[in-house]
């Protein structure tokens, strides 16, 4: 292709991608000029046109891209092995790297635009964690937001860190960030984990005092592993968070030496922070996705109101994300109520892979998704090396 043709193609690619971003953002805000299926198929066709890898996958699966179930789901392994993108690397705005393994190459999810990620994650977080508003307001909340996570790197490499940073910036009072104001909680004081010292218990106590003095609840954003460390630091002591505080718990224990069930962790965190355990909200996200799922356990949140009475440990996807349990061999949806591996169709993944499949076992119940752990690889039969063994190294 000549230089001019390349330029024309790139311009067209960007125009189409930008249009899709705008449509998805409008869809997330409630516009219904496109259905979920229409948008998913438009994104899939865009990716088929501009991503050589996806084109090969479509061909290999003889997919016609006529329905959502017909969009070939990309195994998340591909993010470790190759660039998953429908545009050239020079347009990367961020490169989010997966965590957890040592020998295996990490997975990388690149994004050309971050505004869609920001909008979708903020919308999901607001719906699940904050009180529902009677009327839209610019800054509807007054939480003191802190993260049991390390301060994000620059440029950002963790999608979770990036999301938490936006939660901190958006979900609390900007005046609290002031360095000079008495009783303020500046940016660095929001990040309560460091590689050297682990969880900063004194920092969390200070944030709690700032919140209590200003009559605000705390929104504590934390990984499951950091919460365990916090419990270790507290020992038998308790740290009472102000009333109406919320803990968002995310992530598992990939690559860690300790594992605790979600139920046990919630109960212990609730007891240690003197919160109802329902206020410890599970969030499910992964680097390879743009969107997240939450437990609808905060009764006064939009999600809690919509899914009142939902059983514990059920996660709800936003309208722009669809999770389907699928058969691991055929990748077709399993019968209602049966367990399958999770196939995600994420309208946020406009420039990467709109449909991905993981080894996470899920079951659909009462409008939500139960997470049931990880599908083992083909069982290590005798002396044959399993792919999972390499990933564990």
């Amino acid at each position: 292709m000549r230089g001019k043709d390349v330029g024309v193609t790139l311009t067209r690619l960007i125009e189409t991608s930008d249009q899709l971003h705008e449509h998805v953002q409008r869809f997330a805000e409630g516009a219904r000029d496109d259905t979920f299926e229409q948008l998913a198929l438009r994104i899939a066709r865009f990716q088929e046109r501009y991503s050589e890898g996806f084109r090969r996958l479509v061909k290999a699966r003889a997919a016609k891209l006529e329905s959502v179930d017909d969009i070939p789901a990309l195994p998340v392994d591909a993010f470790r092995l190759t660039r998953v993108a429908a545009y050239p690397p020079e347009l990367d705005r961020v490169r989010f790297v997966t965590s957890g393994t040592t020998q295996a190459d990490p997975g990388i999810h690149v994004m050309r635009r971050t505004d869609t990620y920001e909008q979708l994650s903020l919308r999901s977080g607001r719906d699940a964690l904050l009180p529902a508003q009677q009327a839209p307001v610019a800054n509807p909340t007054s939480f003191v937001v802190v993260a049991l996570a390390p301060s994000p790197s620059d440029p950002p490499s963790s999608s979770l860190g990036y999301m938490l940073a936006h939660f901190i910036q958006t979900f609390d009072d900007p005046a609290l960030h002031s360095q000079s104001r008495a009783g303020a909680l500046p940016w660095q004081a929001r990040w309560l984990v460091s590689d050297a010292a682990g969880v900063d218990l004194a920092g969390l106590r200070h944030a709690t005092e700032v919140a209590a003095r200003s009559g605000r609840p705390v929104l504590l954003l934390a990984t499951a592993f950091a919460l365990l460390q916090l419990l270790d630091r507290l020992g038998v002591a308790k740290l009472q968070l102000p009333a109406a505080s919320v803990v968002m718990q995310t992530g598992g224990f990939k690559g860690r030496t300790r594992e605790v069930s979600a139920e046990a962790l919630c109960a212990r965190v609730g007891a240690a922070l003197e919160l109802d355990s329902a206020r410890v909200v599970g969030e499910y996200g992964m680097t390879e996705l743009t969107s997240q799922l939450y437990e609808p356990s905060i009764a006064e949140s939009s999600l809690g109101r919509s899914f009142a009475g939902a059983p514990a440990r059920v996660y709800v996807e936003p309208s722009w994300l669809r999770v389907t349990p699928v058969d691991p061999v055929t990748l077709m949806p399993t019968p209602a109520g049966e367990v399958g591996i999770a196939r995600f169709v994420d309208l946020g993944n406009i420039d990467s892979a709109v449909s991905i499949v993981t080894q996470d076992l899920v079951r659909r119940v009462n409008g939500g998704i139960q997470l049931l752990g990880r599908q083992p690889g083909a069982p290590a039969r005798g002396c044959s090396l399993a792919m999972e063994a390499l990933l564990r190294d």
Partner: protein
Amino acid sequence: MTEPCARERRLLRLLEAARQLANPTTKAGNSLRRRLQESSGLSPAGIELGLERCLETQPTQQALASLLAKVPEAPASHVLLSANVFVAALRAIAIGVVASPRVLVRASRRDPVLAEALHELAPELFELVRDLLPQAGDHVWAYGSDPTLAEVRASLPTGVHFHAHGSGMGVVVVEARPGRDVLAEARAIALDAALFDQRGCLSPRMVCVLGSHDRALELAQALASALVMLEEKLPLGAQSNEEMAEVRRFRDTASYAFELLEAGSGGVSLSQSPQLLLPPPGRNLHVAGVGDVIQALKPFERHVTCIGQSASEALRARLALAFPHARHAELGKMQSPPLDGPVDWRPPAYGELLGSNLFPIRNRASL
């Protein structure tokens, strides 16, 4: 202590039983084949080929001498067998009977057939048991996945000598040299992969072609054709749902990330870069052109049990130095190592004494 000649006599007696089983015209040989069709999951042709090429019924004197020298003597030897490669039971039991006149074997629940058949013909050599209960001083040879072996190790009493043979894989190294026969190389690799439907720790899963991508493409295409042709004579056996799911995952990942060449029931993935991928068992291989094969394979070193090679003497020497714990074999012979000791030479293949600072057992002969 047992006299060396007694150890050798027990070994020869076991091999005599194996020869009867390998012979399809004997009653025992015929019965074995029928039973293996139910237990092994392999096609009848796969079983026959495994018996013909991989059951070590005619070892050389040199191999036997090596086996006798390498295996320590023990008050009692305990053998925990795995499934997947049904012929492996012979070598494992052979090591047990060389080590001790008192041998207790726990066969694989999934595929106990060869161990049972050997026992029927030579019941005096070993006992088949449901549980292994070794005592201090005994030797345990255990074969299986790494998690299984870790569990076994944790369950053993102090003072037991533990020989663990865990999960592994075979890799192929091909050096592009003038006059090489690409089709012959491809046929040989296909055969190595198809034996036991690629479920063994010697089965090749990755192929490194030293040189350009074009060389790798040439071999990948030939390999895909060779696998198709071989499958006509040697059909793929039954696969579990889990195995089929792994194949689905591999094919979709490889289609996106690399190029996937159809190869009958299997596939050959080909990467543009030196990047390596571990395909699942069946008939699946990953081919990559690499500049430095040692560097490309180093991350997998502890998993590499066998390196099949078509290479110059210089490269063979480098590979032998870089991967001292792997067996080095000609293409087409990766699945038939001599009966000279355990298949797997990776540490701690020659054992560790449990509960005593975990120092390695000194062997009679070093590798």
